Structure formats: C-alpha cells, structure tokens
C-alpha cells in the first residue's frame, strides 16, 4: 500500500514537472521573443549612434525642385563649400564624404554580401579618424584600396592582395594597402566597404571635385546646435541642408525601430499562439491533477474544509508552479533570444553585435504570463473540484461529464465554426487589404469553433482509423477505444497539436501558392534566356547592352533604359527598349491594340493606361530634359508584371540623354540557356562582381529563397508550439496510464505481454496525435486557400498549390510527436507491477 502511495506521489511529481515545463515553454517563448527583438533593435540603434560619432553636423545637398521641363536633382557639394564649412566659427574640422555602390568579389570571383550593403567611399587625407587602420597605410590613387576588417577576414584578404571591384564601369583590380575597422551599419550587416583616396573616389563615383556630404566636427565646447546655426549662416540655403549628428542618429534609430516593429509584432503573434497552446496544456494538466486528487480534496471537504479553502489550495499550487516556471522560462527565453539571433545569422543575415537586452518589461511580462495564465488555468478545475459533494467524490474517482454540457458545447462550437467559415468565405470575396480584418476574425472564430467541437469530431475521425488499427490486433482495438474514452481530454490534447499544424500548414500552402504565382508572373512573360542587372538594383551602364548585343551567341537583346519625361505636366518614367527585339524577349499578354514598339509607336501596361486614361490610339507629347519633345502614339496596352511594366518606348525614338542608364538588359541566346552561355555572358562583362547574369531559373530561385527564409523562420517558431503539444500528449498519456493501471495489470495477468502493452499506449498516442494533425492540416489548407485567395486576388496567375510532400511531412511529424510522447508513458505502463495494479482500486 505504501508502495502504491509512493508511486502515486512520484507520478504526481512527474506530472507537476510537466506542468512546469508546459508553462515554462510558453513563458520562454514570450520572453525569448521580447529579448530577441529588444536586443536586435538596441544593437542596430547602438551601431547607428556609433556611426555618427564623428559627425557633429552633416551638410548635405538640397534637392533642386524641377523647373519647367527639367527634372529635379541634387547639386554637388563642391570644394568651396567644404572649405567654407571648415572655416565656420566653432568648427574643428570638416571632412568631405564620397560614397557609392562598390561590388567586391571574393577570391572565387563571387560578390560579397547581397549587393545592397556593398559600398565604397573615400579615405580622408592620410589619417582618417572615421576609419582607424589596423594594418597598412592610407591609399593613394585608383590602384590602391583599403578593405574593412570584417570583410577582409571573411574573404581572407590581406594587405598586398589584389581585389576585384566594380563600381559601375569596368572591373578594377586595385591592391589592398590597408585594413581598417568601422562601425558602419552596412558592414555590421554583412556588407563590405572599400576606401580609395578622396580624389580617386570622386572620380570613380562620378563626383569630380564634389562630395555627397560634408561632416563637420565641433570644437570642444561648441554644441551641435551652435555649430549648426553657424553653418546655416555661412552656407547658401538654396544648395545645402544641415543636420546635427544627434538628429541623424535619432532619425536612423526611429527608422530601425519602425522596421523592427513589424518583425516584433510577428514574433509576438507566435508567442501568443504558443501561449494559447500552452494555456490549454496547463489547464488540461491541472484538470487532471485535480481530478486525480478529487478523493483527497473530498476528504478535506468531509473533515470540514470549505469550498473556498479547497479552491485556494489549488490556486496556491498554481501560483508556485507559475512562479517557478515563470522564472525558469525567463532564463530559457533569454537563451532562445540569443539562439534566434545566431539562427538568423546562420541564414546569412548579419546582425550587429551587442549585449543581450533584458528589459524590466520583459521580466514583468514573463512572470505575469507564467503566474496569471497558470492560475487562471487552474482556477476552473479547482472550483469544479470544490463543487463536487464529498461523498460522490470519495465513491467514484471521476465525475462523469454530463451529456447536457456536451450538447451545449457542440451547439456552441457549431455556431462558432459556422460563423467562422462564413466570415472567411466572405473575406475571400473582398480585395486585398479590405479582407484582412474579416479574414483574421473568421480564422479566430473557426479555430475556436473547431476547438470546442473537437470532442464531437474525435469519435468519427478516430473510428475512421479503425481498419488500420485492426492490424495491430488487441492492442490496436484497445488503443482505439481508449482514445475515445474521454473525448474532452483527447480533444484538449489533440487541439494543442492542431493549432500548431493549422498555422504551419496554412503558411506553407499560402506561401507556396504565392511563390508559384509570382514566379509564373515573373518568368512566364519572359522569352529571354537571361536578365542582366546590377547586384544592388542600381542602373547599368549602356556599355553592358552594347557589349552583349555584339556577341555572336546573342540572338536578341534589349536594354530597359530609364528615361524621365514630363507628360501632361506629370513626371513619367519611360522605359526604352530595343523595339525590333522586344517581341522576341517578352511574351506579354496584350489587352488592347498591338504590341508594336517602333518609332513613335509605344505600348503601355494596364495600370498606367488606367491611371492616365490612355487607350490604343491615344497620342501625347513627352517632354524630355533640355527642352526636347517627342510625340508618341499608344499602339497597345499589355498586362504588366513584376519584371516588365510601364511605358515601353523604342530606344531609337528617345532623344540623347545626359545620363543614359539601363535598369536591366534582357538577352536571348542562339543556343538557349546553358552553363556555357552564362559563362560567355559573364566573360563578356569582364566577370564583373557587381553585375548579375540571371537565367529564368536563377530568378525563380531568388524568389523562392525569400519564401524559404520566411518559412524556415516560421517553422522554427512554430516548432515551439509543437514542443508544447508533445508535452501535452505525454501528460495525457501518463494520466491515462495511471488511471488505467488496474486494467493494464489485469491485461498483463491474463496474458498481454509487455510489448503489446507498450504498443497499446503508443497506438493511443499516435491516434490522438494524428487526430490533431489531420484536423490541423485540414484547417490549415482551408486557411491557406482562403488567405491565398485574398492575397492573390490581385494576381492573375494565382492558383492554389497544395504542397503534398510538405503535407505528408506534417502528417508524419504528428505521428512522430505521438511516437515520441508515448515513449515514457508506454514504458511506465509495461513496467507496471501487476499485483499492485490489480489490487489497488
């Protein structure tokens, strides 16, 4: 008897431990999310503040409004302005800043960074305080360059090596004469920085004698504001603007905070989901804990404890559990925050270094979540236990759920689910952002509805698994019956998994469908084999088109040339294309008129045509810079897409512009796309690290990569929800095994061997998990369809793509959850002492 009692306590302890674990995971998730976002935001903020350390006031060029037909632009800051800035009272020194895109190749000729953060600049004089040298010396001339220490380390560059650089013209191969350290945010984020001497930088970045910015340092004792007003007095107002270093840092900090906001909210949504799932597990566990102790509690009541005292005893237990779990959860959360940062880093997103930030807000949130949720979750079962009359509790172990409450439950669930489905369906008929709110509402309603209905759904769905279970003989039969024995418990257990899988499946279906749609849109209209563009999205020099067009293997090519014009008083960006070739390079759907781009004949995309009110046959005059005009006629209207949109004009019809630039060049090869063809193109461009030559496959891969990164992060986060679900299943099984120990003892006595007992528990676990999995996947597909329809309403190429392989993996995942969760309870069941089990009542 003592042994049974001891075992009871031990089982109790284990379950309490699992409750603590469940709460802890929820708290860890919330605090981890907070720690992660705070850390990243702070790190970016610190790095931006550091970046403005040497700047007390920055002088920048003022935008010159467009006048008449002349488009607006930024005037250069010249040497005279720099000299004047340096002489202002209170100014200690002034540094002229020149910077621009600079692609740097690693030792294999591949671009370092992703193109957006690869920069070049000027090293001021012989000792630039912005960039302390760790080795080497200041650069002199175009053939000498400095490389930042992080890039040098990453790419394995040393002083004396030659490095291939591309600014926008031909490839340069300067020698590295020094390595410097910098707190530049772009470098911290994985980009590279190459520095030339000022004269070379001005020449290379097309700013002969000019600067992009003048950074002025104040003398000791002069405030930033004082210096700013001095500069404002001294400099021409029509050409310059001044900003203090402080406000530059603040501005950037605000931008970073804003950009992090979306991510923070996204992460908090997941934390909320994990918490939601965690709440059910906690409530479930406490229900079981209390149910198991009903007799003990009834005894307390019988000897005179009041209902309130019984409830309070449960609540005190919950408080202790919540506090312990909250504190450990916070500790684990800090670890998760650090882990997430590392994880993000391993996906290639470099994040500035900085200490982990744990704000008081995080600590309060973690503890509040742990304690409050746990106590709320425990309150209901505690009250229920206190309500049971002592005699009834002592005579039977479990209060049977009345059918009446299930009827109420089912009605309520059906109402919620029906309303949810209706609202979601309604939302799919809306367009874009209008549908977001109803979609969210519908999704929540439907999830709640299905959650309430799970006990009802468990019977038919589990019965459907009967033929499979029959293969396992008695174990299978018993497992099936055990799993529907307590529908509420099965439901609560399965729903934890259901919610996680709903989200995972929904996201996967939606992302997969959108990805396919975007890919199709981007590549289906493209007949060209390759698209050539700058890695940072900058414009290409027209040389590129000329060089490629001259190749023998190229059968057709066309630039997409930027040309600004004023039409009917409004600025319009025209796209110059190779008129005779464009038809061979694109396959655009023509809504109206003909796809003819020659001479004065142009085509426009549907969006522009709509906003301008143009139709096939419309004529208008385009006013270009320098007072040149051109009369153009709309020959046709086509459906635009991500790659090709806007007004397409024959390059031959465009006037000679002061700055001719191509957004990209489309190329069709005589022999189609192949590795050699790509090689030929790259060679023709001098293997420029700044220029990307992308085949259709490369294009869709780069689109896919975006989605993959997104999905991987989601999977990682939702993994937490699944982990909580595993705990839930373990909990339920352990409870069931405990409750049925007498039965299991009898089964062992009459000849069920240990293996079969284990199998019985495992199959029950599998059935429950797969039940949750099937529900979750079903709901997820529905949501994926609905949300995708909403998001894809603006995409003609959108259609539902069901990723069967992934869905199969998710189903397998729920099976794995079941198998893993059953390990310990099954072992326990098979090791049960038969005699003790049979005797104990």
């Amino acid at each position, binding site marked *: 008897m003592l042994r049974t009692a001891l075992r009871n306590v031990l089982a109790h302890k284990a379950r309490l431990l699992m409750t603590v674990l469940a709460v802890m995971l929820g708290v860890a998730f919330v605090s981890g999310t907070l720690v992660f976002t705070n850390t990243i935001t702070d790190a970016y903020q610190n790095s931006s503040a550091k970046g403005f350390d040497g700047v007390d006031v920055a002088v920048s060029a003022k935008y010159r409004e467009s006048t008449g037909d002349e488009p607006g632009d930024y005037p250069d800051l010249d040497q005279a302005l720099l000299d004047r800035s340096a002489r202002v009272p209170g100014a200690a020194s002034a540094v002229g800043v020149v910077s621009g895109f600079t692609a740097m190749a690693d030792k294999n000729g591949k671009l370092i960074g992703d193109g957006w953060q690869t920069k070049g600049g000027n090293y001021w004089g012989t000792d630039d305080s912005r960039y302390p040298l760790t080795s080497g010396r200041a650069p002199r001339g175009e053939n000498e360059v400095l490389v930042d220490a992080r890039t040098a380390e990453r790419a394995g560059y040393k002083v004396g090596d030659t490095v291939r650089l591309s600014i926008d013209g031909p490839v340069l191969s300067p020698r590295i004469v020094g390595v410097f350290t910098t707190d530049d945010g772009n470098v911290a984020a994985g980009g590279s920085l190459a520095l030339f001497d000022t004269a070379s930088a001005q020449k290379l970045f097309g700013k002969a004698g000019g600067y992009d910015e003048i950074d002025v340092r104040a003398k000791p004792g002069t405030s930033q504001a004082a210096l700013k007003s001095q500069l404002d007095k001294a400099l021409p107002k029509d050409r310059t603007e001044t900003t203090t270093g402080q406000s530059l840092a603040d501005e950037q900090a605000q931008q970073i905070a804003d950009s992090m906001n979306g991510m923070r909210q996204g992460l908090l949504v997941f934390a909320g989901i994990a918490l939601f799932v965690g709440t059910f597990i906690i409530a479930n566990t406490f229900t079981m804990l209390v149910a198991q102790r009903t007799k003990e509690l009834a005894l307390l009541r019988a000897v005179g404890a009041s209902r309130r005292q019984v409830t309070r005893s449960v609540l005190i237990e919950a408080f202790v559990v919540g506090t312990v779990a909250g504190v450990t959860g916070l500790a684990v959360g800090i670890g998760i925050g650090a882990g997430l940062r590392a994880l993000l880093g391993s996906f290639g997103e470099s994040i500035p270094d900085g200490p982990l930030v744990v704000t008081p807000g995080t600590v309060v949130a973690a503890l509040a979540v742990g304690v409050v949720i746990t106590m709320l979750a425990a309150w209901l079962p505690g009250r229920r236990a206190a309500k049971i009359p002592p005699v009834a509790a002592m005579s039977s172990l479990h209060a049977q759920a009345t059918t009446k409450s299930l009827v109420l439950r089912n009605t309520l669930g059906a109402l919620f689910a029906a309303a949810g489905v209706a609202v979601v369906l309604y939302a799919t008929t809306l367009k874009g952002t209008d549908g977001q709110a109803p979609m969210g509402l519908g999704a929540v309603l439907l999830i709640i509805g299905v959650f309430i209905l799970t006990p009802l759904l468990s019977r038919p769905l589990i019965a459907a698994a009967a033929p499979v279970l029959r293969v396992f003989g008695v174990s299978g039969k018993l497992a099936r*019956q*055990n799993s529907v024995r307590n529908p509420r418990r099965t439901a609560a257990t399965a729903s934890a998994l259901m919610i996680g899988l709903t989200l995972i499946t929904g996201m996967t279906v939606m992302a997969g469908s959108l990805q396919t749609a975007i890919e199709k849109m981007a590549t289906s209209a493209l007949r060209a084999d390759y698209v050539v563009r700058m890695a940072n999205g900058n414009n290409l020099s027209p040389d590129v088109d000329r060089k490629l067009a001259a190749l023998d293997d190229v059968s057709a090519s066309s630039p997409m040339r930027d040309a600004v014009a004023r039409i009917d008083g409004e600025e319009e960006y025209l796209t110059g294309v190779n008129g005779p070739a464009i038809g061979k390079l694109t396959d655009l759907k023509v809504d109206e008129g003909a796809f003819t781009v020659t001479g004065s004949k142009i085509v426009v995309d549907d969006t522009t045509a709509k906003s301008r009110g143009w139709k096939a046959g419309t004529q208008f005059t385009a006013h270009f810079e320098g007072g040149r005009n051109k009369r153009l006629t709309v020959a046709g209207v086509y459906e635009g897409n991500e790659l090709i949109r806007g007004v397409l004009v024959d390059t031959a019809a465009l006037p000679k512009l002061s700055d001719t630039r191509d957004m990209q060049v489309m190329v069709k090869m005589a022999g189609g796309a192949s590795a050699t063809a790509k090689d030929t193109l790259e060679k023709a461009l001098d293997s420029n690290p700044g220029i990307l030559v992308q085949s259709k496959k490369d294009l869709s891969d780069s689109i896919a990569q975006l989605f993959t990164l997104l999905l991987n992060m989601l999977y990682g986060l939702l993994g937490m929800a699944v982990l909580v679900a595993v705990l839930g299943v373990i909990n339920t099984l352990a409870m069931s095994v405990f409750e049925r120990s007498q039965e299991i*003892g009898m089964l062992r006595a009459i000849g069920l061997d240990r293996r079969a007992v284990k199998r019985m528990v495992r199959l029950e676990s599998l059935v429950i998990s797969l039940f949750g999995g099937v529900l979750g996947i079903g709901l997820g597909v529905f949501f994926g369809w609905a949300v995708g329809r909403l998001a894809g309403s603006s995409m003609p190429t959108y259609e539902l793509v069901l990723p069967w392989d992934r869905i199969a993996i998710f189903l397998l995942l729920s099976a794995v959850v079941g198998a893993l969760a059953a390990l310990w309870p099954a072992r326990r069941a098979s090791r049960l002492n038969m005699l003790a089990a049979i005797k104990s009542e």
Partner: protein
Amino acid sequence: MTTTPISADRTTAVAARATELSKIYGQGETQVVALDRVSVGFRQAELTAIMGPSGSGKSTLMHCVAGLDTFSSGSVRIGDTELGSLKDKQLTKLRRDKIGFIFQAFNLLPTLTALENITLPMDIAGRKPDKQWLDTVIQMVGLSGRLGHRPSQLSGGQQQRVAVARALAARPEIIFGDEPTGNLDSRSGAEVLGFLRNSVRELGQTVVMVTHDPVAAAYADRVVFLADGRIVDELYGPTADSVLDRMKRFDTKGRTS
C-alpha cells in the same frame, strides 16, 4: 507444528504443483517470510479452496503458482512447465494459454462489451474462440441476453459472471480465483460459486480459489489451510461448519503457540 503430508495420488493427474516453495521479502532484520517451503498439488477436475487468516500467505501462494509473482526458492509446475526458469515473456504466454483468472474486483475492460471481455484472452492470443464451447460457457453463466452490454450496464454479480466466463472460455488448464466472491452479495456469490463448481463437475475444469469465507470454501472439493506461510491442514468434502470449525482451531492454536 508439523506440516500435514499430502496424499499425492488421490486422482490420476496434477494440474499444478508447488514444491518446497518459499517467498521471502526484504533482507536481514526486516526480512518477512511470506511462504515457507510450501509443497502442494492441485489435481485436475478438482475445486480447491485456499484458506487462512490475513497475512497467512494464501494470496501469495496463489500468485506464485499462477505465474503472477516471482518466488525465492523451490519450484512451481503448471502441467509439464517449470515456472522458475521462465522469462517474463514466456510467463505471460503461459498465463495467456494455460491459466484463467477471476479477480475480486471483476477487472473487466469498461470499453469492451461483455462478449468482447469474455473472448479477450483469445483475442490477445490471436486465436478464434471455439464457438460451441463459448455458447456452452455463456449458457452456463446465464449471460446470453447481455452479451452486448458494457460492464457499467451490468450488476456486480453479472460482471463477475462475465469474469468467470472469460476464465472458462479459453479452456485453460487451471483457473485461479482471488476472492472471487469478495465483492458480491451472498446470492450473487452463491451463483458464481455454483458456476465454478459446475465447471469442475460438468466440464472437468481445474479451479483453485483463495477465500476467507467458509461458505465459499464449502463449495470446494478440498480446502487447504495456510498460516504463517505454511500449510497447516487440509480438508476433503468440506461443509461450511467443518471449515469454520477448523479455522477456530487454528485461531486458538495461533493464540496459544
């Protein structure tokens, strides 16, 4: 006190036999001897009752002979099988194929119907029940009309009748009952005992039951008395009075010794 020798060959064959069976719990100071070199045989087609005061070792003896518990020394045979050398898996198989059980607390599976509970041992073994035999057994225990009911829809007596049918249905070599009437009122208890006696008389079943009720013991062909882990007496063709009489004698003996 000496152990009364057991006349071994009153009938032809022995279904189960314990020889010099000892079961000792703990070590040194805390050592408890539950069974002390017990030798006993249970003959085929005989209903044996094991009696004795609480703590006499009667349940332990049954558990050891039935392969539910391990023993410290000696030997136990069911038919030709020596239990001492068997591993858990083989023991489980032996219980499944050769032994039937009736427990005090019925021990039916609440999720199964009465019929499913009855055929459970054969389901576990993956054998088809002998239809004719099954009908005979069900007829005998009078459950024909209630086969589709679940245990919760049956009275205690009916539940124990299901348990008796479960033990009989697989045609085991021997059935062990652990206080089979302990949870029943006297009428239901009498019914269950009647079935057990009938199964011995009419079907040739071997039954061993542990009981502390002299009335229940009176249904047996033979009563074995245990005290302090030893067999102290046995009685053939008992009546409730003669059993009670013997028990009183042990009680006084126990007090005087």
